[in-house]
């Protein structure tokens, strides 16, 4: 059983995050809220997302799984007015999700979840932790986009750096400790990442004012931020690029 009311803005945050990596996703629903895990088709990145019961205006659910097509939600959300609240309910007999905005109802056919297994989450040990303003990160990304297709994320004991090397130009965003919200780093760490992936992930952050990056050397980055004003969170994991010659 699943019946809920949720603000369009909150649902939009979820859909933006998930749509960054996949077009279809399996939602795990219970009375505690909603959670999901997904890996992108190239298996370069994954996302874990949790939306607590408090993020909903109302939630009545027993544990169930629903497979949804992200595009259909995008279409519905485009029709939502500012401040709209969506009603969602699972029609188990017909296996459809009934979505209502104002006086508009869409009965969505669902994706078969049989072939959608929950991806395994690697247990990576990331020694450095940086909490940086979303705004700063976005600026660094935009500057890098015209220069290169990959970036380096570097953390030292007293600063964080995002840098891009092009054939002729280079870009570097350096944030000393006092401009960061948090910095925990003993030894210098540095990893390279695809700018495409990293940029899309950071662009999906939405309203969260800051983002936590967990880093290692030649190791994945975990990007964490809050959803729905703290009533949920996102954890992205992005595999690095390793230059081998």
């Amino acid at each position, binding site marked *: 059983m699943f019946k809920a009311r949720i603000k369009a803005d909150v649902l939009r945050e979820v859909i933006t995050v998930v749509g960054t990596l996949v077009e279809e996703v399996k939602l795990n629903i219970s009375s505690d809220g909603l959670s999901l895990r997904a*890996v*992108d*088709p*190239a*298996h*370069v*990145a*994954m996302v874990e997302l949790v939306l607590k019961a408090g993020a909903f205006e109302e939630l009545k659910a027993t544990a169930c799984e629903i497979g949804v097509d992200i595009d259909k939600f995008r279409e519905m959300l485009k029709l939502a007015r500012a401040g709209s609240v969506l009603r969602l309910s699972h029609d188990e007999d017909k296996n459809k999700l009934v979505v209502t905005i104002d006086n508009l109802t869409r009965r969505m056919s669902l994706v078969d979840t049989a072939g959608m297994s929950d*991806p*395994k989450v*690697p*247990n*990576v040990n990331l020694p450095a932790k940086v909490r940086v303003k979303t705004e700063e990160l976005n600026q660094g990304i935009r500057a890098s986009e015209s220069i290169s*297709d990959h970036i380096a994320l570097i953390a030292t004991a007293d600063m964080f750096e995002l840098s891009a090397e092009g054939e002729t130009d280079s870009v570097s965003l350096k944030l000393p400790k006092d401009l960061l919200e948090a910095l925990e780093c003993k030894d210098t760490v540095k990893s*390279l990442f*695809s700018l*495409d992936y990293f940029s899309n992930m950071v662009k999906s952050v939405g309203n969260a004012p800051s983002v936590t990056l967990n880093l290692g050397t030649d*190791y*994945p980055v975990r990007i964490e931020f809050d959803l729905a004003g703290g009533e949920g969170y996102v954890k992205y*994991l992005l*595999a*690095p*690029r*390793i*230059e*081998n*010659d």
Partner: protein
Amino acid sequence: MREGLFSGDTGNRCVVCKGSKMLCGKDRCPILVKHFAQLRARTLVDRLDIEGSSPPGVFVGQYGYPKVFVGPLIPPVTGDTEVMDTPEMWLGRSIDEIVDFRTQLVRGMHAVDVFDVETGGRTVDLVREMALAASPAEAEAEFQRKPRGRLVLDDEVQPFGPSAPLKSLDVGSIKVDHRIEKPFYDTDLRAREAVLDLYGDGVFLSRIQKAFSVGAFGLGRNRRFVPTRWSITAVDDTIGKQLREKVKRLPLIDEYRIYESWTLDNRFIVLLMPTSWRYELVEAWYPNTVWNPDGTDIMMISSHEFYGGRKDYAEIGGCYYAARLATCEHLLRLQRQAGCVILREAHSGYIMPVGVWNVRENVRNAYKGPHLSFPTLAAALEHIRTRLDIRMKKWLRTSRILADIRTQRTIEDYLPVEPQAKEAEGVG
């Protein structure tokens, strides 16, 4: 190195050579090949009218768009001329043969606004009807002047012969291809659906493209003439995209595969990899090939896309879309998804461009043949190294997809190692 003997520009060299010493380094003299073919056409059409069986063929120019020249391609011979404008039948023929029959096609030109598909008058109606024909059509054209002998070469469009403005055009009875007729009369069917339906019905791409170029498909009010050059890529892209979305839902292949094709002194190596969909076409032009006529260095160029496709037009042109279509066709036949990198070496025997069909049919041909299987990328690249002249290092430096595969780690790389550890990939 011959500078001491004949200093100066290439023109000088040709004067001394006169096509006998091959000083320019090509296998055969391009000027001679052109001239030879042209002579033949000129004697056949040295007059103000022409009568023959159109394959059927039509051509829509792009210069002056949206005011363009449309018109039939008519050879001065009657009979079964279908092959002359059906690139699907050309693979395995020599460059001379292709040039020979293409040069016989005389292009009649009639100026028209691209939107005047319905109201363009009798000549326009006849040209459009010819584009829908199922078999060669008897055509008689009168020109305002004698067709000027010139072989028109283009990287995208197959070559054709002399052209002249039309004075009048008469066409015998035309048997319209009933498969094409259906979307033609359906003015509520979008061009995209029409193209996809016809492809699904097994209609030759060259046929679909021809009808597309005369504005035979689409919503009534949107119909217009589309320059031949653009229509080729439009059809390749439309179908390729559709097939690609199907491919993206299929399970991955479980090995590295290499296919090969070699015609008109073009070597194509196709590498399929057990990854999600991604695609790249890398071309290497030797000095003295069509597009690198005077260079001393090999020129390399590539275009690629990752899983999400691309938004801008491919740098290397229409051949990108032609080869992508051929690749998706094959993957659907296999019912497998894969990443694909195509390496093309254009050698010195490729003296003139013959059109995008060369790439499409070559890649299709490669997939028809046997393939070799390899467990790792390193092993596959090692084999490719023995099949191509250009050093692997250069290919790797140019190819974005190969660079990505070799550097980008995946989530699985950080999962606890299972007992049957997966084989190490990548090359040193």
